[in-house]
């Protein structure tokens, strides 16, 4: 894969970032070098290796239903300051 301007513009949008033209050029160079290097991953055979093999034991706690707190006692936690301008409050 060759990283071109279209891919960079797409990644910029996905990352929710504004990237300057100079940064884009640097990024394109770095990404192309990286992709070339990371392409080593393509050439390795790893048959019979599962995606989640590394999890040998459950790391999660048991799924036990618990009573939830009533909304009113949690009321104060839902008050947040305005974020956009000064007009929108939740």
């Amino acid at each position, binding site marked *: *894969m060759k*990283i071109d301007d279209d*891919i*960079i513009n*797409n*990644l*910029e949008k*996905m*990352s*929710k*970032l*504004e*990237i300057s033209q100079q*940064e884009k050029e*640097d*990024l394109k160079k*770095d*990404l192309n*070098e*990286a992709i070339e*290097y*990371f392409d*080593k*991953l*393509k050439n*390795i055979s*790893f048959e019979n*290796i*599962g*995606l989640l*093999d*590394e999890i040998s034991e459950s*790391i*999660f*706690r048991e799924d036990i239903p618990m009573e939830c707190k009533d909304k009113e006692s949690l009321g104060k936690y839902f008050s947040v300051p305005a*974020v*956009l*301008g*000064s007009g929108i409050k939740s």
Partner: protein
Amino acid sequence: MTDNKKLLDEFFEKKDDCKSFITTCKKEAYEQAEYIEKEKKCGKSFVLDGVLAGIKDNIFTENIKTTCASKMLKDFTAPYDAEAVKRLKENGAVIVGKVNMDEFAMGGSGETSYFGAAKNPWNKKKIAGGSSSGSASAVAGGLVDITLGSDTGGSVRQPASMCGVTGFKPSYGRVSRYGLVPYASSYDQIGIIAKTADEIKKVYKCICGYDPKDSTSSKESEKEKAFKPETLKIGIEKNILEYADSEIRQAILKAIDFFEAFGAKCEYFEFPYIDILIPVYFVIAFSEASSNLSRFDGIRYGFCDKEIKNADELFTKNRTLGFGKEVKKRIVMGNLFLSFGENETYYQKAVKLKRVILNEYKKAFQKYDIIISPTYLDKTPDLGKGKSNKNFIDKFKNELCTVSANISGFPAISVPCGFMSDGMPIGMHIMSDKFTDEFLLDTASYFQNKTNFHISKEVKPSGI
């Protein structure tokens, strides 16, 4: 009896001319010291009495800023203590402040910090290493006894090596990550830096252990393994040693001679997947970083440009202004590896290969008790010249020494083992099997008790 107040008076008189700290917390430190004195008068004793500690600025501390060395979080104060910090305090350590680091722990030189790079106390023109740059320079400069750092690919061990101190990354799951701002969650581990492995062991025993608040915290106990130099079996990573600068290679070979002289059996071996360690490490790290850092949009945390009226623009503007260049680059790369069409090619393959690498190291630890290599392959770079002129691959060459412990989850430590001709310290990297952390620390301690690399040259940063 330790007088914590006196220790604090001394600490706050010192000048931090290596930029080791981002924030100091005088009020909280004296309050903690007062509390300890009061408890001691009631008969309580503390394992870490008299220990002054610095905390890497990506680990939560209640009422003290946690900036991650980023503009994004420059005014963020954590609402609670990280579990490791809580345990440190319960055992009598006094937190004196938050130490410098690479922004969001992304970097290997300390130079991506929004607050400016920490300097190396051995030579202030040199980098302190990274990403736990301030953690290492604060201990090396004699400001504090111990520091907590975070280690995602060598971020505790590499700066420890450059600053001539001891840096330890425990087994994944042994120290709770609750309250550690995540970079790459499957690699991140809180580590400890101190002058000696003995001091680290004391701290480690206070902060390790299961924590239900961290879903990756392990309930498994330490494997019982006694350290005996005469029966020690050492594997030496031949291919990594060959990449090292000749002075570093010589220092490691001398350390190997040291162990052999006490009866250890040493054997060179070649790790078959050496070429894919870095690609596997970075594909997973960058992918996890892009996901973890998506939470920073200026709404829930940190930097927010209040003038913007539109939500989409708000997210983009805040992230663009809040993140530094290196962080942005890693987010973009992570998004590429996770994006439709590339996910299978890169991310999923890397996750599978992580397993292959782990299995290979497990095999190696059936033969060897410890694996030795250098911690860093080159001379300690000058500030400003760390990585800027290198291409992508050269930038990450040095991570080869340390990433295997993060990919496999094994414990690893860097101990001083010599000096370069320019006077800078050299670190030896020792890794052992999972959950043999105390055995590893005993091994490092044995080496340090018989050598004097960690104390042979007094570090005297001017003004300290």
